């Protein structure tokens, strides 16, 4: 995988993970163009499109688009499964995850992603193991960043 973007239906970026070295300017340009392209797709169209020399796999979950850029040899159908697995992980962690969870806890969304994928490839195929690792790492945190509690399924804003 070369990169993964999460964005809302209004085109607002909620997460960006880049696995290839690009300048900030290039990243912004790619993001802008790709977001436009994906948002222009009609609901009946398939989840794959060719963009530049990459294959783009995208799927919408509620108000969020999950969009991955994969290489020619990568399997599009399994990429859909990867996206789905990530959503499942977020869902288990936040308890019925919604876009707001990802907005207010973006750093955690990144931590979860980084326990699931590394360098663009899946590092752990067991849902349980990923969540266990996150749980343990959370316990090591000395400070609660947002002032909220870290229990699974409980969100509170201070």
């Amino acid at each position: 995988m070369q990169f993964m973007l999460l964005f809302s239906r209004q085109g607002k970026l909620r997460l960006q993970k880049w696995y290839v070295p690009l300048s900030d300017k290039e990243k912004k340009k790619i993001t802008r163009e790709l977001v436009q392209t994906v948002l222009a797709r009609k609901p009946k169209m398939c989840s794959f499109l060719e963009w530049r020399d990459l294959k783009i796999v995208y799927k919408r979950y509620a108000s969020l688009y999950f969009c991955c850029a994969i290489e020619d040899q990568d399997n599009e159908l399994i990429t859909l499964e990867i996206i789905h697995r990530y959503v499942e992980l977020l869902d288990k962690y936040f308890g019925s995850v919604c876009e707001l969870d990802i907005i207010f806890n973006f750093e955690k969304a990144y931590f979860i992603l980084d326990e699931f994928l590394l360098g663009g490839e899946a590092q752990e195929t067991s849902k349980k193991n990923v969540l266990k690792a996150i749980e343990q790492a959370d316990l090591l945190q000395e400070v609660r960043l947002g002032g909220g509690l870290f229990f699974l399924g409980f969100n509170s804003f201070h």
Partner: protein
Amino acid sequence: MPAPIRLRELIRTIRTARTQAEEREMIQKESAAIRSSFREEDNTYRCRNVAKLLYMHMLGYPAHFGQLECLKLIASQKFTDKRIGYLGAMLLLDERQDVHLLMTNCIKNDLNHSTQYVQGLALCTLGCMGSSEMCRDLAGEVEKLLKTSNSYLRKKAALCAVHVIRKVPELMEMFLPATKNLLSEKNHGVLHTSVVLLTEMCERSPDMLSHFRKLVPQLVRILKNLIMSGYSPEHDVSGISDPFLQVRILRLLRILGKGDDDSSEAMNDILAQVATNTETSKNVGNAILYETVLTIMDIKSESGLRVLAINILGRFLLNNDKNIRYVALTSLLKTVQTDHNAVQRHRSTIVDCLKDLDVSIKRRAMELSFALVNGNNIRGMMKELLYFLDSCDPEFKADCASGIFLAAEKYAPSKRWHIDTIMRVLTTAGSYVRDDCVPNLIQLITNSVEMHAYTVQRLYKALLDDISQQPFVQVSSWCIGEYGDLLVSGQCEEEDPIQVTEDEVLDVLEGLLASNLSSPVTRGYALTAVMKLSTRLSSVNRIKKVVSIYGSSIDVELQQRAVEYNALFKKYDHMRCALLERMPIMEKAAANGPTETVQTNGEAEPAGLEPKHPPTIIQPANQANDLLDLLGGNDVVPVISTAPAMKPASAGGELLDLLGGLSLSAPTPAPPIPMSQPPFLLDGLSSQPLFNDIATGIPPMTAYNKNGLKIDFTFERSNTNPNIAIITIHAANSTEAEMTNFVFQAAVPKTFQLQLLSPSSSIIPALNQGPVTQVIKVLNPQKQQLRMRIKLTYNHKGSPVQDLAEVNNFPPQSWQ
């Protein structure tokens, strides 16, 4: 200084902003606060501030001033700090900046940290964004961790190693020992990442590939266990055990089995098993099947297995899920060349996909359909494709039309069917047909002699309905001009002849001339058609009137034609019949497909080149007025040969204009001679120019070199006539874009005679990939110094280019 606000607080505040300006203001305020907090070197709140900065960065605001702070966080002992610090590094730091190298030492320390989660952070960051320098420095640490028994770290180290290898391929060898026992792991995470690592190594090095081939049995065993094992809750996805691992193993098997008989045989069984046993109701199963199909097609599998694979793809085509259909069509397109017959069996399903709603699926189905057309299915396929052409989006129409023409040309079961198909395309998608198809179609129609009456009748009828589609109108008006007599005399055999009067025909053509819908090119066709009818119909007076009206047309092209046709009526009436005779069967030159050139259709090019000029007057060599053969053309001699321009007499020794100044004011005194090949140039010989077996020793020269186009001349003396020099031009294109519609023309002083044969092609490929050659024969009986003026026209990057040049540097041996 009050404590900086918390992250969530900031997010909440920013989200209340109602305008972009308001948001910007809030951000700026907070940025300033963060900056001063950084300046105070406050350890307590650094983490919080960087986190806020990362949020602002995601919104698109600058955050570079936080880069060093991230490094400080990474160096901190607190886990929270490290977590945010590494995240910040991955988001804000860029391997192009030297700043990132400061991380190296921290990462090295953290790779050896006592807490595995800290080690994990370091491995993740290195594997995500490590630069080549960092990778070189830290590869050793990664390699160490690859051998650890801690599976949490081992799996991360494996993917980190993949990144290191991608960045610094030379380091690959170093990881080889550590790969020894990777596949004996039970842990799926380690297995998965190990397979990824092995894949990377095999893809990069043929030596590694042969080394790892011995792992095939082990991989097959692991895959088998996954399929056969019962329900495993930890790895189950919709009833399938660890699909991610299955897919990666299949991919590695593909690489290992490619081109290797033994390995391919070893995996045959398992592939068959996966292909038949995998549950296909969900995307997950289909993902595995897809990977299996790709593997089967790539390795040396037995034919039964290959057919199984294609059948799976065929079933995919029937799947409700459009993603699966898309993937199937893409794969079938790749295999249609190698497994043509197997794919043919699914033809009807593929054709059904033409009706799909998704644009990408439709396009692939169209491409695949064209690939599957053959002599047996042409009628059925064409019906479907024509229907598709009717209803598809405009973006497809041009490609579809061209594809249909090609297919029809190759497999037409009968001439009538062919003509009918062409007409159907012209009438339904006539404005999307590529311009270069028009000459092709005209040639086709000309060659179908027995269909002329039928063709012109049908085209005429269609023209009555609709004159807006230019390529269609052009072909139709050409046909009417050529076969109008058949139309009027009602000679059609294929269908009931219609009653058409001469006036009706002329009405239609005049209508085209006058209509706003007609392009200038179309008008040219129409006018020429009218002119031609002067020898086929009896309403000559009406035609004369039409022609004289357009003599004062604003359109220069039209005006010129009209004036010349007028001249035909007035002064050259005796030639008119011969000039406007029926077209002969044209020789089809090199099959260039839709991009057939003007040149190869040569003298038969109807687009106004030929009847435009008054007839040739061929002079014996001693006459004052010499012939200039300016237009290239086929050397094969039809009755109507190339129509070179006629020049009035002029003072000796000058170079005469190319195609310019075709004034009709100076008639030549010489009597007209029926047009035929000048007898003294290589009499009766075919288009093969004569070359000496050995080089005549005339040095080659560069005649023209501008804008990336270089034309070299090489010389040869003719065997039969020592006064004839045979020049071969080599035109090469050093630019990045090809040059199309290339036409080379030459003029020589009047004591010379020139003959231009057909060029090898009208497209000069880019980057000097193959020059276009053309032969010029020059007769120089008076042994005068050879000079030449050349005119080049071509299309480059979409715009037409034209250039004139003088060539004076001929080596003396070429004309002495």
